[in-house]
């Protein structure tokens, strides 16, 4: 079977009908249907997302051990082997986090086609839509769907509002994600993270400008749901809302300067009691530091037990090696 046929029959066409049906139950609003679809799709993917978030949390917990391995082994191959062993022992799948994202891409591409076809923006798409709709009165009689949602025309390319929403939400998601593992990253990784922090949201913001607004609405709402889930199940990492205030503004309003989250100078000096008392953002920072402190303590405890087991396995390995020789 050609891939195009499979794509259309099993993904695109069902999605077209689902979207039309959701529009009917959303009082004829295609925009509400997109939001409803986003919630449903995120709910269906929730088990996978939860697994990913747990993996992220586990990853966060073993960061001290990873850092120790990085210090301990200078040989990249050995370091990699030991890291993989650590992943295995801790039950962490480093690729597990890709699942929900990879599933979203086909949906994203299909939804692009679905929006173009379902909204019947051109006479061609009306004719194409005809044989894609299932033969149910509720679906057949729903066309044409309203293209307006609030002040957005869903069939027109994304405007500044949606672009800003997508950029900001993706930036925030990246910021929360990348700050978490910053401690164990080398300079190259940190540099890459810095680049991704801006490049990925920038790319999607540009994308929103180039495709129908409906797709931007889906991506923006999906990212926001992702942030909420991440916040609830993994936490914000070292992110604080106060950290959004740039240093140049902080200088002007008398707030303490903050270092970049994933720079080498991540260790912040203890906040002065005055600053802590003065501002809410400082309090947030201190709370986060406190969290990190407890994480560090936990990390130390885990590291001790982990290094014991690592030593044991190393010795047994040597023994096996000796007996074999």
């Amino acid at each position, binding site marked *: 079977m050609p891939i195009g046929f499979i794509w259309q029959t099993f993904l695109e066409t069902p999605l077209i009908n689902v979207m039309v049906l959701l529009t009917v139950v959303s009082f004829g609003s295609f925009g509400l249907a997109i939001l409803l679809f986003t919630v449903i799709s995120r709910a269906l993917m929730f088990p996978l997302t939860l697994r990913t978030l747990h993996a992220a949390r586990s990853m966060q917990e073993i960061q001290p051990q990873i850092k120790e391995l990085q210090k301990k082994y200078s040989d990249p191959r050995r370091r990699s082997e030991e890291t993989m062993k650590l992943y295995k022992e801790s039950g962490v799948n480093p690729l597990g986090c*890709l699942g929900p994202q990879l599933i979203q891409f086909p949906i994203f591409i299909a939804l692009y086609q679905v929006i173009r076809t379902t909204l019947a923006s*051109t006479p061609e*798409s009306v004719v*194409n839509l*005809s*044989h894609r709709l299932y033969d149910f009165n509720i679906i057949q009689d729903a*066309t044409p769907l309203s293209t307006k949602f609030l002040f957005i025309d869903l069939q027109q390319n994304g405007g500044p509002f949606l672009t800003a929403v997508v950029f900001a939400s993706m930036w925030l998601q*990246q910021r929360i994600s*990348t700050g978490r593992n910053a401690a164990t990253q080398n300079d190259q990784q940190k540099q*890459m993270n810095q680049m991704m922090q801006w490049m990925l949201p920038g790319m999607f913001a540009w994308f929103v400008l180039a495709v129908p607004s409906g797709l931007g609405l889906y991506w923006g709402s999906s990212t926001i749901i992702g942030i909420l889930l991440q916040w609830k199940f993994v936490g914000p990492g070292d992110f604080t809302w106060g950290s959004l205030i740039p240093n140049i503004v902080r200088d002007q309003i008398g707030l303490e300067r903050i270092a970049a989250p994933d720079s080498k100078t991540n260790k912040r000096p203890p906040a002065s009691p005055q600053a802590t008392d003065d501002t809410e953002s400082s309090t947030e920072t201190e709370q986060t530091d406190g969290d990190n402190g407890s994480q560090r303590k936990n990390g130390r405890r885990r590291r001790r037990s982990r290094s014991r087991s690592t030593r044991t396995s190393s010795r047994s390995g040597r023994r096996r090696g000796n007996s074999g020789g």
Partner: protein
Amino acid sequence: MFHVKHRKPLIAVLAATVLLAVGCANIASPEGWAAPAVDGNTIFVQLERGTISAGTLSTSGTFSESWRYPSETDDLNFDGFYATPVVSGDAVYVASHDGSVVALSTKTGRPVWPAVVELDSTVVATPLVDRQSMYVPTEDGELVVLDAENGNEIRRLLDPGGRIWSAPVAKGSTFYVGTFDGREVSAVNVSTGISHWTSDAGGAVSADLVLTPDLVLAGSLGRSIRAFDTNAGGDPAWTYPTQGWVVSTPLVAGSTVYGATLQGEVFSLDADNGNENWLLAHEGLEFRSKPALMDGVLVLADRDGRLRGLDPATGELRWQSDIEDAKLFADPVAYQGSLIYVSKDGDLFQVSPRDGSTSVAFSRGG
């Protein structure tokens, strides 16, 4: 979210997705399916997206182009045409999807207006030229009235709203307009702009409206053809339900209405009461182009180039033929005893209604 070591494949996936999606952006772009128009021996047709060509068919059946507009020297770039060119006097009026409207000399193909009129809305429906005015229905839901002599805008009728995809029809000073998003048919006095009546069309009106002495017919996505009594304030006279969407303009011949749907139905109705004379279902065929009646044969063209010749009295199949790789969305036009179809790719076909034999009059592939 992602461990940094696994970013590279992710970036590759993202980049591929972006490229793929942007590549898909042109799939549903408006290409236009304007039907050809004929004036005497001259055919006016869109052979290339956004251009209008004029020419004649030679004795060997080959299209001989006399002019094309815009030419390379005009430095103009129009969207495709959905609206059929309208010939009135010595001018042919064309409206492209991007809202550019121009009147051209039928002889030379040069503009007769001082400039191309650029409307602030896109255009799908065929305009109507009546006496000194040109009426252009827009996708903003307005009816823009232009001076046919010079293209100056005179006024705008109807309130902006849903899209108009179907060509309006006129009876005296009353215009009948069908709306796509509004799913209505309205009667408007073109002198005053006052609406006489508005009736529910039962679905989005995509096919051109058709006028009989007492009725205005509207095929719709509501899977029906509905007839409105023009003498009784637009009261529905009858409704004929169908299985598929009616985007093909019904054909009225005497007291009979012939219609076709996107689910392969072809039917004949009594124009007075909508009673069905016969109904045939051609499974797998999708009819967008208007049926044609010529030499006692009802000819239908499916969007994939499958032609059917039927007995108009009984619906019995007389002949069938296929034009390979031809996307036939445009209505046909009668020309010297044959029917002319233009495909979406800009190929021109001559079809004999007697036996369905086809010949290529012009092929963009050479």
